[in-house]
């Protein structure tokens, strides 16, 4: 095989997906052995690990991360499955699909803030019921946010993970030959939902296994949702690691590295457990299928509708409250609506919001343009597809806190400095996998006969790409650009670490201001964050419609 430009892109992609994680992990292992970069004296490795295991509450922190991660992943997967089983193939589902994009776009932090102002004892739900029903004149002293079991945090995770899994399942439908299988089992007299679970789900699950693993790993190590909604006495292990990394006692940074390895081990154990669970469920499914029981599946449809509506209410309700707070003057408990309106926050932050927003979008666009070239180039080359698939999930499954600090040190060492370049490269590590995920299916779904015809017409591979594949894929590419920009906009830790603080984005500014706890400012920045992430989605929907307004074949199917 000759080395074409697309092969160059492919190997660059491999480097970008694999290199940073390996470089980062190397630094973390060194740290865990007591060699903290920059610190003048190394610390004995035994002291480091002894300190980790004797840290107050470490056992509970580990258990908490483990349990909340598994629970969030399980509920997200079960909900997504139920929604697909009860709903896919119906007309309303086809319409509802468009609503997935905004769910995906909203940064985790903004979604978590929205949920917080909704479910807190002083939140909107309590206000709606007070005092006429509850009798509460002041907020009840209830432990809802930061409950010791981490249920509020689990809720925050589900609201974001459910739409991601749904999107992955929808993408898997064609290859799983869902329509054919469904026609078959319905003819055999199975209800829709039950038939879907038995006949279609196994095929779908095989394809979304890696996304599910990514969800599990993310849920166990998420920082944003844990900071805003999670328990603090003690917090989940990811937060403990952050605290160590931020402690004035610089020697605690060694503990942060060791903690990162604990976090990584925890994720690996959970993945093994999950795999065993998969095998058990597959057994159960087979015996159910053999029993031949039929059922109506009405319950599943109702459950699906309820689940979809609930997560929708939490997300959109949360944003409604954030929007209200951003224009609230006086707003005491238990008033349902602000008593007075004030545009002080928008007036004082408006200019900064526009400026930071523009910089954020510009950075995201530059990163996505680069990532798009790499992703399309790699897909054109498509050798070693297994290698690519495995690598795509590497930055998504290895928790961010475990390799980012090591990666920052490595990027400084090779002289990348601070500012837009290192931040852009760091974002690329997380944006590229999503572009590959979103584009792989449409790319492979292109009728291979187009390629044969084009070659027969004498078009060189380059002309085939520019004249045919690129325009044919305009719609999925626009969608992928939007997803990629949303991912870039939502990055917090990578932006902060790589930029040295010199490249503020809406997300870093939002989290810095959130430290002040002013709901009005949080509301304004949360909305700005969401708007920045949603704008590309709106464009992605509108652009193909505009370009292909005279091409029916490009608008349907």
């Amino acid at each position, binding site marked *: 095989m000759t080395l074409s430009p697309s092969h160059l892109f492919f190997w660059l992609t491999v480097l970008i997906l694999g290199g940073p994680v390996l470089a980062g992990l190397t630094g973390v292992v060194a740290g865990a052995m007591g060699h903290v970069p920059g610190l003048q004296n190394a610390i004995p490795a035994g002291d480091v690990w002894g300190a980790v295991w004797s840290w107050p509450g470490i056992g509970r922190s580990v258990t908490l991360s483990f349990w909340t991660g598994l629970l969030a992943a399980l509920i997200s997967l079960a909900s997504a499955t139920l929604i697909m089983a009860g709903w896919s193939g119906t007309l309303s589902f086809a319409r509802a699909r468009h609503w997935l994009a905004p769910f995906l776009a909203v940064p985790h932090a903004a979604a978590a803030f929205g949920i917080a102002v909704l479910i807190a004892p002083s939140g909107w739900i309590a206000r709606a019921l007070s005092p006429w029903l509850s009798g509460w004149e002041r907020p009840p002293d209830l432990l809802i946010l930061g409950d010791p079991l981490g249920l509020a945090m689990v809720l925050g995770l589900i609201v974001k993970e459910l739409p991601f899994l749904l999107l992955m399942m929808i993408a898997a439908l064609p290859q799983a030959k869902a329509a054919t299988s469904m026609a078959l089992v319905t003819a055999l007299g199975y209800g829709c939902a039950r038939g879907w679970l038995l006949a279609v789900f196994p095929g779908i699950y095989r394809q979304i296994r890696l996304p599910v693993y990514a969800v599990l790993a993310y849920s166990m190590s998420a920082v944003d949702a844990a900071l805003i909604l999670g328990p603090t006495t003690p917090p989940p292990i990811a937060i403990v690691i952050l605290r160590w990394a931020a402690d004035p006692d610089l020697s605690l940074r060694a503990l942060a590295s060791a903690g990162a390895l604990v976090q990584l081990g925890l994720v690996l154990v959970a993945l093994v457990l999950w795999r065993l669970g998969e095998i058990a469920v597959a057994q159960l499914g087979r015996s159910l299928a053999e029993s031949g029981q039929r059922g109506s599946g009405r319950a599943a449809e109702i459950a699906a509708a309820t689940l979809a509506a609930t997560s929708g209410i939490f997300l959109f309700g949360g944003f409604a409250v954030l929007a209200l707070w951003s224009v609230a003057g006086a707003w005491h408990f238990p008033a349902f609506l602000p008593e007075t309106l004030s545009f002080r926050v928008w007036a004082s932050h408006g200019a900064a919001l526009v400026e930071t927003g523009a910089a954020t979008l510009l950075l995201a666009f530059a990163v996505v343009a680069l990532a798009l070239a790499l992703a399309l180039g790699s897909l054109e080359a498509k050798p070693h597809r297994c290698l690519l698939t495995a690598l795509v999930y590497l930055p998504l499954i290895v928790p961010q806190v475990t390799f980012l600090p090591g990666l920052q040190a490595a990027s400084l060492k090779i002289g990348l400095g601070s500012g837009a370049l290192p931040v852009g490269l760091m974002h690329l590590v997380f944006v590229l996998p999503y572009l590959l995920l979103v584009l792989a299916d449409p790319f492979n779904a292109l*009728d*291979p*006969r*187009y*390629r*044969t*015809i*084009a*070659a*027969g*017409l*004498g*078009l*060189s*591979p380059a002309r*085939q790409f520019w*004249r*045919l594949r690129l*325009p*044919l894929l*305009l719609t999925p590419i626009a969608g992928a650009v939007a997803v990629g920009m949303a991912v870039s906009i939502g990055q917090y830790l990578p932006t902060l670490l790589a930029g040295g603080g010199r490249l503020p984005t809406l997300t870093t500014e939002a989290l810095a201001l959130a430290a002040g706890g002013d709901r009005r400012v949080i509301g304004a920045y949360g909305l700005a964050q969401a708007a920045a992430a949603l704008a590309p989605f709106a464009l992605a929907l509108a652009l193909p419609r505009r370009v*292909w307004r*005279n*091409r*029916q*074949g*490009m608008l349907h199917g």
Partner: protein
Amino acid sequence: MAESLILKTLTISAGATPIVSVSLTAAAGEITTLMGPSGSGKSSILAAITGTVPDGLFATGEILLGGQNIATLPGWKRHIGILYQDDLLFPHLSVGGNLALGLAPGGRRTERQGRVKRALSEVGLEGLAARDPATLSGGQKARVALMRVLLSEPRALLLDEPFGTLDSELRSQIRSLVFNHAKARGLPTLLVTHDPQDAEAAGGPVIRLR
């Protein structure tokens, strides 16, 4: 332009297992028919000729076109035109855009437009150059697909069950149109079909695969 397409023990294998092996000569200006049940390897032979053998399979043997072994060339340098059951017009291009795609690069814009226009009127589709292909009828699409491949001046023509989706009246109409154009240009043409009527209408030699 009177070249023949000659397959010399063209063999498609999966690993060490041969799937199909064939030797034949498709003479210029003649329609050679390849028949066989599904799974007999008809499509793999066409793929070998166009240079698009799928991953996991490989082809050995020679593919001679005008005495030159084109098996070593990349697909896009072989100039093998192909028509499928589906018209496969590019949905993002206009009718004229589809046709112009096959024209060799270069030449003046007005000249290229003129050639597209003449090709359209040749098959009774005058004035449809600006149309969205999705708005054409099935018969119109099939004719555009034919003219698209002919405008690219192929050295041989492959027909992969090209009439399968057309209803019977249209089917014979399009069939004779395609056959006539292929013969008129003196193209060596290989027709793959499982329909005996197609083979009969082709009027050339028939090779049966098992």
